């Protein structure tokens, strides 16, 4: 309302000025319309000022992205291959000296780093691509974890059979949870998903067949592949597990990229930017949101299986609400919708607190401050997606909820 009053006092602007619309019969209507126009003009200017202030920070992502797209196909693949080789070489001791002198780098590489990256890539399908705010993503991580534990301990199934089973089960869970929830939008949807995460954890705490609060122990490791050290899954060396999660990350990234560029990906983008408009273009919005939820969920489930297979024992405490929040902040901080950004975000959220363990007491404080600073200076994330950036900067679309609220006020 404040916006409305201020602009009502300001003279109307643009070609619809009073002299032009003066005496004719449309005059009144025109004047009213130009007043609405001037509210919009004001908002746009205020937004532009905010953008100008932010624009003083160097934005390297634009040039880098452009250079990347200019590269020929084969050299893009070479770069990708180079990144994978670097990731394979990451568990070296000297890297650990730099990255995590105070803790065991190889362990960190598997959890939290590897698992967080996998979860973030999965959650990005839901949040970044389809624009569904899921605050309970940990639910799928937990379902995957418990599937591995229960089937491994009670049924004695092999890791390689449980992995696809759990992935399928999580996809089905996504459909079951999503069918009622995805009929809601915005805040309501967020609250319901928040509930999912908690319901799964609390059920696991209270049920006897999940071992209650003490969880499940004696979870089998994956079977060894050949005689190589890198594929021997024991208790002491975390590196083989890291390679396993790395392989899954590569596969999932490949699939996510494929999806993003497909017809489904375009539909998700449309839903994220304007769900009603997408429906009016003939996109079956509910069905596609459900798919995003299920696909994201199954990736979370895969991460849960990995986690559980390395850890021997799991308890409900492994799946706290905080995990959902951390992975979501990784996605948002990194640049929701842009895979390299999301991966970087997950890496930083997982690694920074471990690197600066000396400041243990202040970790949460620093993390919170970092989030606030990010939201002021770079709300679109470290490596934003092209689409997200322009949505945020122009103030329309999914990224700019506050503006939408103001525009509704205008209408009344």
């Amino acid at each position, binding site marked *: 309302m404040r916006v409305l009053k201020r602009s009502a006092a300001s003279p109307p602007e*643009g*070609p*619809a000025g009073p002299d*032009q*619309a003066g005496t004719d*019969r*449309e*005059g*009144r*209507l*025109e004047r009213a*319309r*130009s007043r*609405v*126009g001037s509210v*919009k003009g004001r908002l746009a200017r205020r937004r532009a000022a905010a953008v100008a202030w932010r624009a003083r920070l160097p934005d390297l992502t634009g040039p880098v992205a452009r250079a990347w797209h200019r590269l020929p196909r084969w050299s893009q693949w070479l770069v990708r291959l180079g990144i994978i080789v670097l990731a394979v070489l990451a568990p070296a001791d000297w890297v650990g000296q730099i990255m995590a002198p105070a803790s065991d780098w190889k362990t960190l590489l598997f959890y939290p780093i590897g698992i967080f990256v996998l979860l973030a890539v999965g959650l990005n399908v839901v949040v970044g691509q389809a624009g569904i705010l899921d605050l309970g993503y940990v639910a799928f991580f937990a379902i995957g974890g418990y599937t591995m534990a229960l089937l491994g301990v009670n049924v004695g199934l092999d890791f390689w059979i449980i992995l696809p089973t759990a992935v399928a089960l999580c996809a089905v869970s996504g459909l079951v949870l999503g069918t009622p929830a995805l009929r809601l939008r915005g805040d309501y949807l967020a609250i319901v998903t928040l509930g999912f995460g908690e319901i799964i954890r609390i059920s696991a705490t209270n049920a006897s067949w999940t071992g209650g609060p003490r969880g499940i122990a004696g979870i089998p490791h994956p079977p060894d592949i050949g005689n190589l050290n890198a594929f021997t899954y024991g208790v002491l060396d975390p590196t083989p597990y890291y390679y396993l999660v790395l392989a899954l990350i590569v596969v999932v990234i490949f699939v996510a990229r494929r999806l993003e560029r497909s017809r489904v990906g*375009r*539909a998700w*983008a*449309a839903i994220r*930017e*304007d769900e*009603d*408009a*997408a*429906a*009016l*273009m*003939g*996109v*079956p*919005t509910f069905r596609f949101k459900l798919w995003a939820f299920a696909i994201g969920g199954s990736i979370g489930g895969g991460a849960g299986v990995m986690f559980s297979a390395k850890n021997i024992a799991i308890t409900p405490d492994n799946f706290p609400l905080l995990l959902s929040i951390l992975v979501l902040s990784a996605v948002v901080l990194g640049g929701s919708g842009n895979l390299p950004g999301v991966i970087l975000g997950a890496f930083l959220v997982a690694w920074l607190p471990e690197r600066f363990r000396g400041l243990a007491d202040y970790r949460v404080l620093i993390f919170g401050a970092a989030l606030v600073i990010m939201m002021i200076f770079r709300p679109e994330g470290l490596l934003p*997606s*092209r*689409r*997200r950036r*322009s*949505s945020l*900067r*122009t*103030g*329309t*679309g999914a990224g700019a909820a506050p503006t939408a609220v103001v*525009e509704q006020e205008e*209408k009344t």
Partner: protein
Amino acid sequence: MLLEVEDLHVHYGKVEALKGVSLAVAEGEIVSLIGANGAGKTTVLRTISGLRRVTSGRIRFKDRDITHLPGHRRVGAGLCQVPEGRGIFPGMSVMENLEMGAYGRSSRSLADDFERAFALFPLLSERRKQQGGTLSGGEQQMLAIARALMARPQLVMMDEPSMGLAPLMVNQIFDIIAAIHEQGTTVLLVEQNAAQALTRADRAYVLETGKVAKTSDAATLLADDSVRAAYLGVDSTG
């Protein structure tokens, strides 16, 4: 009749927004729907498009009952809407927005459609790569109309296409609507700008608090005293 709406009742929660609306649009017509703020115009269009469920009543399109057809299948049936407030995809380029318009269509080649769109809207042609969100209001409205036409609808419904535009641009938009109509698309037009809407339309419906208060050919309504007083800002005495 191309589109027939019979005794439509629609609720938002317990509030009845439409209290038995009936209207019809014949092939080749421009029909406009006018009414005050909150009369239910947007609700009528959203219900026809399938974004809102009906409480009771029937919607027929091309002699087929589409009352319970899912919204996305109605686009394929030949019905497309330009939403209130334009609803373009801000992060997509002009071209990508247009491609989304053809989403529900099965045919592969869009070349003819792009050509038609850019012939109607030369301004958009200069801005093919520009992000939708950075277009001006008028350009966005053009894009929204062009995007709806990409579905090759038989009936295009527009919700206040002149909203928030300067008089010059308003005229331009109405000229474009006339051009689209001449090319053979039937138009159902919701407007606050009653003067323009009634001048351009064949017939019109006046909606008042969820009911059709008046319907007639547009010229008659344009001359009607009570309509002039309520929607054209003219005293019935003067």
